[in-house]
């Protein structure tokens, strides 16, 4: 309550003070006008009496250090009126005092209320006793002259109070000049300043209209002013036998001496990039006219392919057709592309077509995720609101896994909802669902920065409607403008797993194949690798060294039993197996669901459904998972996955409490010895898992 009353008091006091101030200024002006009238009517005594309290009041303010610069004109006018009145009343001493005061306030002030020679001379005598005169010539003439932070016209003599002064001469495109001068009373100082150019004004003449000029990777201006508008420009263009009406001028900023990267660009036209050397004209500093530039039209054949095909192609907001699509004579330049198929995903991105006859855009439709912004704790507030926040938003657009839509929600506290402790999970879930519906997105992404121990951390959370919890990706926040660590961590595409090849060096036998894709019959465990591409390898490091060569195809000469044979492999398909935990379950789920939606062949469908099933198991949706596994129709080539699929189904049945069905399937797996491994690597044996699960079901029951 006390605080409230104090606040009220402050408000009232301020208002009252302001009112008094305004009233005071009004009174002074009125008094000055009245005194002026008396002066004009030769009533100098009355004028003096009228103006005297005002001058004294200003003086008092000045003595107390309260005189504002805005008060100066009134103060000077009051002093002038009183000084001149005093002079006319024969009070020369008082007049001298007032005039001296005026001169100290503004040495270049000339008396305005009288043109009397006698008074003017008296005033000038006083000024001469206090000031010196500076005559300064400045080149170029348009340069600014600044003395003690005040701008002066250098074409007139300048009165300066006796003492030290700093003069500065400045003009854009020139090195600035500054000097200290000491001036004595009655002295006349002569100064001459010629500024040295440090850059040059340059004009570009470009065809067609609207072309953008980019200098040193920064946009300068567009060519919008026709060159026929000025005679110099028109003459210059004509000197190249060109029509000035066709060319448009860009009056660039002053360019410093040295090389500059110039780019002229316009959609549908070729792009010209060149280096412009700028030399300074120290004598005359004449502007530079660059030889007219003409851009010719540039198009390419744009091919758009998508997976899945038959997706709609929208470029720069216009619908062009369905994939696969070929667009002849398509304008070069930067374009935003959206390729989408109803309920099957979309692709959003930017392309830049330049200097090519054909441009192929091959995309996979991706899930779209909504980015709702960044929040932070107090210690890292600057990161969230500063360069990091905006750079993160910009760079998220380039991630490969998802399309990112930016939220247009006005609530700045929205990102906090997803990080603040104590916020109910159901609340978050509700918000995720409603925002994803509103923006037609499949997930929601939100960022934050925070301090953990001595480290600053940046974090991204991914929420998916209908599933509790979130995926969290963290990275150290090292550079406040570089979100690449965080984005890479989030976007990281796991190493492609193709052939799993693993070898070991046996003392007696050399390089032995330990592990390989069991479906490949050319190679078997225990084969001795004699040569790689014809080069003998006797140990593991030699084998790896040979694989490092540039050739894509690798021929392995292997010995099995008493015979040897050559096996060809594509090197890009050989990798060493590395297994790690994958935490990004929701990301995985979104991508797997996308794969199912996008799958076109039966093989792809099988793989995608299995993956989706696995993801769903992780997210706890066993019914959906089971239905995914039910959809897997294995054909002859994929039969080796049948035990794996059955095992995954068993896990779902068990979780759902359907032990009978689980046991039945386990027995089926146990009786089928054709594929001993889980999945398509030979890393995890299936039978121990099956027998263990079977006995556990029995024990439990």
């Amino acid at each position, binding site marked *: 309550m006390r605080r409230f009353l104090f606040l009220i008091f402050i408000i009232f006091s301020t208002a009252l003070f302001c009112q008094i101030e305004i009233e005071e200024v009004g009174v002074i002006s009125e008094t000055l006008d009245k005194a002026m009238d008396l002066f004009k009517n030769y009533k100098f005594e009355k004028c003096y009496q009228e103006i005297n309290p005002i001058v004294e009041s200003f003086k008092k303010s000045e003595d107390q250090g309260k005189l504002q610069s805005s008060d100066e004109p009134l103060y000077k006018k009051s002093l002038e009126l009183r000084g001149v009145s005093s002079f006319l009343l024969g009070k020369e001493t008082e007049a001298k005092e007032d005039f001296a005061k005026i001169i100290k306030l503004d040495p270049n002030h000339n008396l305005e209320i009288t043109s009397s020679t006698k008074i003017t001379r008296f005033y000038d005598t006083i000024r001469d006793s206090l000031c010196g005169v500076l005559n300064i010539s400045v080149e170029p003439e348009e340069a600014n002259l600044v003395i003690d932070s005040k701008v002066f016209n250098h074409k007139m003599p300048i009165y300066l109070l006796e003492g030290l002064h700093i003069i500065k001469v400045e003009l854009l495109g020139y090195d600035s000049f500054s000097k200290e001068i000491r001036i004595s009373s009655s002295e006349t100082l002569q100064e001459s300043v010629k500024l040295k150019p440090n850059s040059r004004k340059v004009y570009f003449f470009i065809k067609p209209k609207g072309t953008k000029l980019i200098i040193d990777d920064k946009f300068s201006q567009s060519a919008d002013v026709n060159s026929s508008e000025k005679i110099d420009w028109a003459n210059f263009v004509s000197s190249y036998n060109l029509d000035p009406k066709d060319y448009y001028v860009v009056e660039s900023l002053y360019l410093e001496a040295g090389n500059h990267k110039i780019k002229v660009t316009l959609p549908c036209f070729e792009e010209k990039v060149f280096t412009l050397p700028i030399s300074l004209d120290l004598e005359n500093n004449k502007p530079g006219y660059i030889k007219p530039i003409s851009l010719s039209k540039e198009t390419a054949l744009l091919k758009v392919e998508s997976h899945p095909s038959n997706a709609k192609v929208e470029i720069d907001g216009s619908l062009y057709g369905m994939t696969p699509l070929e667009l002849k004579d398509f304008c070069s330049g930067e374009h935003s592309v959206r390729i989408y198929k109803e309920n099957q995903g979309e692709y959003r991105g930017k392309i830049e077509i330049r200097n090519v006859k054909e441009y192929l855009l091959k995309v996979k439709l991706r899930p779209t995720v909504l980015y709702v912004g960044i929040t932070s704790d107090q210690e890292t507030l600057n990161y969230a609101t500063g360069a990091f926040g905006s750079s993160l938003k910009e760079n998220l657009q380039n991630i490969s896994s998802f399309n990112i839509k930016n939220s247009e929600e006005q609530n700045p506290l929205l990102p906090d909802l997803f990080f603040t402790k104590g916020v109910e999970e159901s609340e978050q879930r509700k918000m995720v669902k409603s925002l994803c519906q509103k923006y037609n997105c499949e997930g929601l992404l939100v960022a934050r920065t925070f301090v953990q121990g001595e480290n600053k951390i940046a974090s991204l959370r991914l929420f998916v409607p209908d599933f509790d919890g979130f995926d969290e990706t963290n990275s150290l926040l090292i550079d406040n403008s570089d979100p690449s660590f965080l984005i890479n961590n989030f976007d990281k595409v*796991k190493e*492609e*797993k193709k*052939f799993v090849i*693993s070898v*070991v060096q*046996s*003392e*007696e*036998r050399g390089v*032995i194949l*330990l*592990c390989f*894709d069991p*479906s*490949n019959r050319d190679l078997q*465990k*225990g084969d001795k690798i004699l040569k790689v591409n014809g080069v003998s390898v006797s140990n593991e490091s030699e084998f790896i060294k040979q694989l490092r060569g540039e050739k894509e195809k690798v021929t392995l000469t292997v010995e099995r039993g008493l015979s040897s044979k050559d096996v060809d492999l594509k090197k890009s398909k050989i990798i060493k197996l590395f*297994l*790690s*935990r*994958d935490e990004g379950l929701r990301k*995985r789920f979104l*991508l*797997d669901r996308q*794969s199912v939606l996008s799958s076109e*062949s039966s*093989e*792809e469908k*099988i*793989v995608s459904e*299995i*993956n989706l099933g*696995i*993801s769903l*198991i*992780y997210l706890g949706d066993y019914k959906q998972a089971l239905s995914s596994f039910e959809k897997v129709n294995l*054909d*002859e*080539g*994929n039969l080796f996955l049948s035990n794996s699929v059955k095992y995954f189904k068993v*896990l779902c049945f*068990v979780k759902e409490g359907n032990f009978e069905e689980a046991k039945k399937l386990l027995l089926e797996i146990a009786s089928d010895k054709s594929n001993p491994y*889980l*999945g*398509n*690597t*030979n*890393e*995890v*044996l299936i*039978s*121990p*898992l*099956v027998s*263990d*699960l079977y*006995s*556990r079901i029995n024990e*439990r029951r």
Partner: protein
Amino acid sequence: MSIFKKGKLLTFSISLLLFFSFLNFAGDLFPSKVDESKEIESLFNEAKADFYKGNLPSSYKNLMILKPYSNDEEYRNFMFFTLIGLGAYFDAVNFLKDNSSPEEKFLSNLLLKRDCLNLKPKFAIKENIYISKQIARKIRGITSDGESNFILDDKTCYKFDKGGKIVDSFQVMNGSEISINQKKEAVILSKDSLYIGKNKIYLPSEIEMPISFCPAPYDNYYILDGKGKVFLIDSSAKILEERQILIKNAIKIRTDFLFRIFILSKDGILYVYDASFNPLITISEKLKINDIGAITDFSVDYFGNPILLDKNNAIFIFNYSQNFLGKFYDEKFKVKSFFFDGGEFLMAVDKNGSIRKFQL
């Protein structure tokens, strides 16, 4: 038509990365674990217990769950031997291939050599020492702790240094077998007792006519008696378990690192059981085709590959998959007794007191 051929493996393979977590999920099917660190510890104990019980599928499953969390030598050891027990030899070698100690490298190389590639043993002589002929003629068994050799005859156990000089001896009446325990103490089985070092422990009266013994899990011992009974006793000779086996005339009992139990019958058949005495395999036919005479003694290496001594003083080596790997026979060096360290070295004594150390 394979999915590999069309390059469609990518997405599926990515999910295979989930397998470990997936197995984790399998572990949670019957949720019994609460705290993660405790869970890890208890899962490992569970895995070890399963291993010692011979329940290798369950041990494997729990070890797979632990794979992202554990990579110490103990864990690797259990996983390695579990994979061996499951017959996945190449996988076992592959598992230890990276990130392993010199000992592990040695083990995986040995496994690769003996069980994956079926390589022939070399029987390269590494050492040759001599002991008294009198002792050699009455020899019952030989063992070694790496530094010293122990030889048991009908009355005494002698400790020899590397040069063949007796450095210690103590009286053991009616000793039948000698072995070395984990503490590198000589363990001797006699008619009524077990000597652990020089410490004599009387066997319980239930064990009649003990004829063979070998190590059992948790520093315990299996004792085979003349009536076809196997007793599990602790180091104070307290009977922990008693089991009647159905093998006629069982004469020797041995265990490997997986604590699989190997029992040899008088008629030359080798019966193999898991640690809970569930029968695994019987090795007999393969032995017959190799002209083996009546087997008098045998040993197994770390992985259960048997080494047999027949009455003709020849040594035969097989692997667990019953592939014949090699034979040693020398007219001038007729093996009377041998000690096998389970790995690469075999020490054999002939009746003239010559002791040879072979590298296999």
